[in-house]
């Protein structure tokens, strides 16, 4: 059975009111490697609200991650063998890319600050890599597993961004093996709807409500499903609960 996936971003009401663009980005690709015939790759980034070119930063982060993974798969990397060193090398590449681009337009790199979330999956294993907040939830062997908890400083309005050397030490990696059924990757605008903070668990009703549409979709990607997800993310019910930009990517094999 092959992957079905859906992805969408919706601007937050606070961003719309301030005349800011949507500074989130999410992308899904099926990539082929020399030793890994097929891998699902999800890249998500959330540009910092305070950064003037945050949307550009989020674009650079996701594009660079996709390129790094494709190159590694071309050189024979298998998902099960991904190490922290691989992850840190990719984040280092992202940081240098962001710094170069910022330099080119005369901005400090922090003006392109964005988080970096990356999931690489096969039917038997998923590698999750993360700098910053947002969350990746994996349905494996019929249970929801939080791959990595959102990175926050002591205060609610602080997190890590993939724009400086600190990002490399902040890089977290989690390899989950088992029967990989579904993967959801989201920015912090969606995370409070999907996680239960006090118990540190995934809120199953959220995923149980959204994943069936993905599971029942035709293989690959479906434009109308992407539009439906964008509508959902911009619905009153969601906007009543968050004013931030929202990105949600979901993929399913079951």
């Amino acid at each position, binding site marked *: 059975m092959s992957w079905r996936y859906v992805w969408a971003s919706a601007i937050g009401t*606070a961003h719309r009111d301030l005349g800011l663009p949507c500074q989130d980005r999410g992308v899904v690709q099926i990539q082929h490697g020399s030793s890994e015939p097929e891998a699902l790759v999800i890249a998500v980034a*959330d540009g*910092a*609200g*305070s*950064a003037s070119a*945050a949307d550009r930063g989020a674009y650079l982060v996701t594009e660079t991650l996709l390129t790094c993974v494709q190159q590694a798969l071309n050189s024979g990397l298998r998902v099960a063998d991904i190490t922290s060193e691989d992850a840190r090398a990719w984040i280092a590449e992202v940081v240098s890319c962001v710094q170069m681009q910022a330099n080119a337009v005369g901005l400090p790199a922090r003006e392109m*600050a964005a988080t970096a979330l990356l999931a690489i999956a096969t039917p038997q294993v998923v590698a999750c890599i993360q700098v910053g*907040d947002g969350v990746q939830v994996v349905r494996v062997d019929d249970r929801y597993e939080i791959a990595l908890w959102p990175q*926050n400083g*002591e*205060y*609610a*309005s*602080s*997190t890590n*961004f993939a724009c400086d050397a600190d990002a490399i030490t902040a890089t977290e990696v989690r390899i989950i093996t088992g029967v990989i059924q579904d993967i959801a990757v989201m920015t*912090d605008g969606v995370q*409070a*709807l*999907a*996680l*239960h*903070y*006090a*118990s*540190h668990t995934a*809120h199953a*009703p*959220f995923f*149980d*409500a*959204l994943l*069936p*549409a993905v599971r029942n*979709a035709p293989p690959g990607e*479906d434009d*109308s*499903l992407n539009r*439906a*997800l964008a*509508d*959902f993310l911009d*619905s009153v*019910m969601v906007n009543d*609960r968050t*004013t*931030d930009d929202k990105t949600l990517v979901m993929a399913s094999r079951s």
Partner: protein
Amino acid sequence: MEQDQKPFIISADVASIFAENPSDRVACLLLVDTSSSMRGEPIRQLNEGVRFFREDLMADSKARISVDVGVIGFGPIQILQDFATADQFTPPLLPADGDTPMGGAVLRGLDMIEQRKNAYKASGIHYHRPWVFLITDGGPTDAWQAAAIAVRQAEEQKRATFFAIGVEGANFDILRQIAVREPVQLKGLNFRSLFLWLSASMKKVSQSQVGTELKLENPTGPTGWATTG
């Protein structure tokens, strides 16, 4: 897929698909001079100001459940209101009696803030950097040097943001040694404008998002409620 199928539209009665998490909090601690020198119009205006503060927070749907207000009075030192959000906070009647143990009140306040943070952590509540507001019309009658060191450390470690406001007659030389930020002087007894500013600032903090820098209105501007002390 057919055009009219809306796979992600969920009717309002199943809104329980969303996790219920407590609102992010910002603790705002008022350290208020309730010594005998505040008797009469000053304490009356201060009481009015605190009531107005609560009303203004209540008018904002986010702030009313996010801003945790605590009140410590000094003269003697007592917790007049433990931290509570505006919807659960009844403004205490501030007395005006006794001397001015400001140093002890500051230490008590910083301790109260750390305890509150521990309670947030234990409940998985996200929070912003707490604010402490010291309001006085006099000078400390107790040893205040330890408090000055504690405030400096709290600021350096980003544990809290500390502001000192003097009413006319306050000892600004000592306020300057306690607070890292330049203390400001309230124009007359314009507590109402002070608390309106504080409420507006708290609303901004409670709505701030990751990586967003806060820009507060300068209270010593031409239309502000204060002058430089």
